């Protein structure tokens, strides 16, 4: 394993309200726990996973497919942790927030 390993996995936005401010905040908080550079890749753009502002520019609605991409020494763990957030739907299956 090299320090610059890149790991990616596809996720789907399951949140009914889309990737709004709260899940973006949770995502950025999780991403900041890792040393790796983390990006969320949509059809036409990439967002810095550690920036809420950037994540919100994706305007990812429910059902949107995104790729989580991490590069760095803890890329694998980072992608797994962020993947879990999506898998768990950011703990808000029927958000009214």
């Amino acid at each position, binding site marked *: 394993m090299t320090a610059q390993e890149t790991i990616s996995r596809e996720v789907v936005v399951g949140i009914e309200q889309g*990737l709004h*401010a709260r899940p973006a*905040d949770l995502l950025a908080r999780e991403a900041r726990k890792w040393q790796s550079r983390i990006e969320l890749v949509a059809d036409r753009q990439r967002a810095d996973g550690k920036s*809420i502002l950037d994540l*919100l520019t994706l*305007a990812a609605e429910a059902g949107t497919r995104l790729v989580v991409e991490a590069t760095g020494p803890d890329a694998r763990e980072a992608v797994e942790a962020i993947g879990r957030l999506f898998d768990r739907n950011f703990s808000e299956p029927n958000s009214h927030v």
Partner: protein
Amino acid sequence: MKFSDFVATDAIRSDVEAGTKPAVIREMAEALVEAGRLPAGELEGIVKAIMKREDLGSTGIGRGVAVPHTKHPSVDRLVGTVAVSRKGIDFESLDGEPVHLFFLLVSPPDRPGDHLRALENISRQLRDDTFCRRLKASTTPADIEHLLEEADSHGVVT
């Protein structure tokens, strides 16, 4: 979505008096009531709902920006306003920075897409340092209104 699609220009404030999170939220919601964009009778309920949302996690999204918001049945379309604080207000943001720029949004319960697109527009413009700097430096509501118009039409000129 453009700023002009949701920002109530009469409710823009270039120098909020508030020094705390609850106070700035109230000041902005009151501005929307004064501008006739929110019913006066719903003010308390709306302020309470926005604060409840903040309890779930701060809407301070970094770079000195916050987007306090809520859904509320008293509006039939997305309505919002902009405020600037000279001194900055502690908003428990992710990056710990005090917040100078506020975008308050109230959206109808059944329109999550509009809310998402308003957040997209706000965050896209705010990634631009020039926009941030000029918004922060605005001294009158008219300055802010012009800046938003400029951003809507062709992006902000340095």
